[in-house]
């Protein structure tokens, strides 16, 4: 009798030996489309203008010979208004703070929804789900007005990091709350019961039991909201002043500034894309899981 566990059904799409070849050709073709543009940008960020035109697809040679391979990257700091390196710092401050704010507020709210006997749990959940359907473009103008009103009370508020962090926290925490609530519901209650008997307070339970046990959910929700915030263009484009601009906005202005310096533009793409790709390659499973779990938000 055939052992069931070792039986692997034939799953090939096409028939016969040719099928395998055809499958791999199609798959490799799509892989090529996702790799080739990146490789092209990467290679060309190490070439000067002449070489980019004359030797578009080959390996960089001139800068390699002269030993100043990173010329293009150095020239990215040329405009004080458009310093990509400072843009990185801004991006990390903004998205890092948004991430922190989202995880803090969402875990607190999720704790209530998952663990409290609360009459309006259903209504609050519906309120959160509905808020996820509000498109960014529908709030961008009024929020600008609100920011200006706040700036009248708090000096230096206009154009500060907070004008982007707050809308990001508001826009992404609804989803984080729903994800964390469903995770916290799966945490067994015995630990909390024991803690209550030992005289632990409710904030104590939240800090010492719920938070540490929710770390896996924090990681996948965190990756997701960080990337959303990091990749967002329109909010910082509209709300921030020059020195506080994150890398996405600077990148969107590069064609105007460096219009004749092709190498620098290539370098600008490379320098934005490479860190994210490295992060992705080393934490693939988390990123894929985190992002596809966030599919509802898209």
């Amino acid at each position, binding site marked *: 009798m055939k052992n069931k566990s070792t039986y692997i059904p034939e799953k090939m799409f096409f028939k016969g030996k040719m099928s395998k070849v055809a499958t791999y050709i199609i798959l490799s073709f799509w892989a090529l489309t996702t790799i080739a543009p990146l490789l092209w940008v990467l290679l060309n960020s190490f070439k000067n203008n002449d070489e980019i035109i004359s030797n578009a697809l080959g390996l960089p040679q001139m800068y390699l010979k002269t030993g100043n391979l990173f010329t293009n990257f150095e020239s990215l700091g040329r405009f004080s208004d458009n310093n990509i390196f400072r843009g990185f710092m801004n991006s990390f401050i903004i998205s890092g703070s948004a991430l922190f704010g989202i995880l803090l507020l969402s875990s607190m709210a999720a704790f209530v929804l998952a663990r409290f006997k609360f009459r309006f749990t259903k209504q609050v959940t519906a309120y959160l789900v509905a808020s996820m359907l509000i498109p960014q473009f529908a709030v961008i103008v009024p929020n600008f*007005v609100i920011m200006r009103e706040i700036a009248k009370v708090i000096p230096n508020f206009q154009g500060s990091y907070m004008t982007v962090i707050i809308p990001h926290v508001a826009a992404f925490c609804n989803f984080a709350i729903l994800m964390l609530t469903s995770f916290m519901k799966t945490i067994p209650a015995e630990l909390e019961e024991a803690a209550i008997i030992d005289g632990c307070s409710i904030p104590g339970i939240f800090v010492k039991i719920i938070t540490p046990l929710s770390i896996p959910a924090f990681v996948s929700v965190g990756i997701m909201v960080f990337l959303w915030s990091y990749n967002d263009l329109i909010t910082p484009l509209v709300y921030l002043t020059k020195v506080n601009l994150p890398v996405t906005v600077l*990148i969107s202005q590069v064609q105007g500034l460096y219009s004749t310096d092709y190498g620098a533009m290539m370098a600008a793409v490379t320098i934005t894309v490479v860190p994210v790709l490295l992060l992705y390659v080393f934490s693939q499973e988390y990123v894929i899981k985190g992002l596809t779990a966030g599919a509802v938000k898209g």
Partner: protein
Amino acid sequence: MVFKDKKYMLLFLTPAILLITVFLYYPLYKTFVYSFTNFSNWSPKFSYIGLENYKRLFEDPVILVSLKNTGILLLGTIIVEVGFALVLAILVDSIRKGFKFFRMVYFFPVVISGTAIGLMFYLAVQYEYGLLNGLLTAMGKEKIEWITEQSSMILVLIPVLWQYVGFYFVIFLTAMASIPQDIFESAELDGITGFKKAIFITVPMIWDVIATVIGLVIAGSLKVFDVVFVMTGGGPLDSSQLLSTWLYQQSFVFNNQGYGSTIAVAIIVLGLLIYVLSSKLTQRESVNY
């Protein structure tokens, strides 16, 4: 454990709810209000002008272009994006060697920001040094001016579609992994393999997921902004304008916040309309297993 303490309930829940109310629901309401005003140049003095902005919306030729472009985008995403993702998922699901590699590289564009992708494709279609003209030269052909009034929408469509194929591919792949193997086994005993199996077993088995994904791409197609903004800025001559880029231009470049808000209302209404239509169309009995 079920807690009842009202004090902590309020303390823990209020900040998030307050933030959502103030920065999502209240602005949403404000957008509707502004759409009936002549709000411009961020001046706090504006007056209600009735349906003036809506009249303008229906007479605006750029709105017509952006609606047409949104339509192209919708068809493109549903047919090309979902189609490619599905085919690639079926193929990758059928192999053992290289499974992880393909999944990794297909997901590359998803993690990159739309802005960087926009700039990358902007560089790729440039006349002097672009990748496409580089390939043409390598094949011994003449260089071409790629971005024209006629081609601009198709050119911005390519990166938009390309970026998210990998995303839906992974969703389909995950769904396929949860189809029980014995269904395939019995299908094989009946002599059903390859193409037939994909059409008659795999696709119906994950129909729920396909319907959800179609809903997602439709919602997503109204949000497209970054790639178009960076690649063409809606040009040349507004030929690749979308509702989102036109809203940006009206509100923040021409400083017409009243009319910009009317475009925002159009986006909301259109979104709801398409959502209702698509959920009607993709509704089908779900398969239980």
